[in-house]
């Protein structure tokens, strides 16, 4: 997702100036994505350059509102209609860390799994607590953002449980066989992560 589409969606509600956009953006993401006003203006000027928004005359208070154009509406509609691709996400450091932990001498993989699971579980507890406190109908957008984080954390815990069960069954005979890292990992990254692990 881009700030760009976030701002277009907000302008679809009606014209707004920079500070209003920033406040509305943060409100609709439950402050999970803080924006600075510079990012808002940079994005607005790019949107203007691409013909997706248009500036309106300044108000007496010196604020310049923007409105969405037809091209902007089309772009927004396309964004809503297009599924998000997971391949754009950064590489999963945790998965790589565990793969390396399994093949690095002297590392207790189970402790790595347990430490991560406790941390993720704590995050889940806090997210749930926030959700429990957000019961008003107008909190729905915020609750859905929280739910998304809850389900991601849950998936991570399930995967860690799965890892733990696999480790119980895993009986290394002699030196651990080399496990090929995921195909999108390059050797430099692997070395860097291994180094970070060793420093802890």
């Amino acid at each position, binding site marked *: 997702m881009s700030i760009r589409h976030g701002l277009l969606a907000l302008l679809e509600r009606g014209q707004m100036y920079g500070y209003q956009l920033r406040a509305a953006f943060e409100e609709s993401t*439950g*402050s999970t994505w803080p924006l600075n006003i510079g990012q808002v203006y940079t994005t607005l000027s790019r949107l203007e350059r691409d013909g997706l928004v248009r500036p309106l005359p300044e108000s007496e208070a010196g604020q310049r509102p923007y409105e969405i154009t037809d091209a902007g509406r089309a772009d927004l509609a396309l964004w809503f209609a297009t599924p998000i691709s997971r391949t754009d996400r950064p590489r999963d450091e945790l998965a790589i860390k565990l793969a390396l932990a399994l093949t690095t001498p002297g590392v207790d993989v189970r402790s790595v799994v347990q430490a991560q699971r*406790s941390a993720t*579980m704590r995050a889940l*507890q*806090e997210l749930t607590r926030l959700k429990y406190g957000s019961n008003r109908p107008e909190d729905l957008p915020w609750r859905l953002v929280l739910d998304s984080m809850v389900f991601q954390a*849950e998936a991570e815990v399930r995967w860690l449980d799965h890892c733990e069960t696999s480790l119980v069954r895993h009986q290394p005979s002699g030196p651990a066989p080399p496990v090929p890292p995921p195909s999108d990992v390059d050797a430099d990254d692997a070395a860097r992560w291994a180094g970070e692990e060793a420093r802890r």
Partner: protein
Amino acid sequence: MSGSDDAVLELRAVHRTHGTGPAAVHALRGVSLVVRPGELVAVMGPSGSGKSTLLALAGGLDRPTGGEVRVEGQPLGALDRRGLAQLRRRRIGYIFQQLNLLGSLSALENVALPLELDGTSGRRARALASAALTEVGMPALGDRFPDQLSGGQQQRVAIARALVGERRLVLADEPTGALDSQTGEAVLHLLRRRIDAGAAGVLVTHEARHAGWADRVVFLRDGVLVDTTAPLGNVDQLLTGSDR
């Protein structure tokens, strides 16, 4: 783990072994746990890790082969069958995946039943049952029979039955069962509310999302507690999430 004077539930180095000799199965091996008023503890772990055994021991449905279980300071081992049954009826509420509602009784009668079995007068039992049904959001459906209620409503009746009267300890084993995620969440919401009002609870679940409702999460593996969490103090740190 000492200084547990106000503990509602306390497990002290509890062992539970099924069978003897080479065929013995060690379901729990020295588990200690304290649950205080206003606290919900979730127990997680793979199948066969001892979760349900722990819950059965906590509720006096099973006896440990070593160690001690106390409910409100009372060692369960010191009670005879009758004393134990009385404690279970009065102080402990159970929520199971199988609801065990009696089909020939109305919702209200199902909820009032444990009180009436315990000698509470019919009128008072019904008043308390009615209050419990209101607490779970079903004030108007007390006359319906289980088969006239949806799955979610039946689960609410089962919860009302677990909460009715003066229950101080609520034990839940996968209480959201086959419910959809919204209805399941409503169930946990009710449980949480009762805990916040001063009860103590243990929630056995294999779903991290449900364990998230607890104040503390303990992980069992092969009958041993391997891991415990307590909530973070700082929520803001989590939301800005710079370290993820």
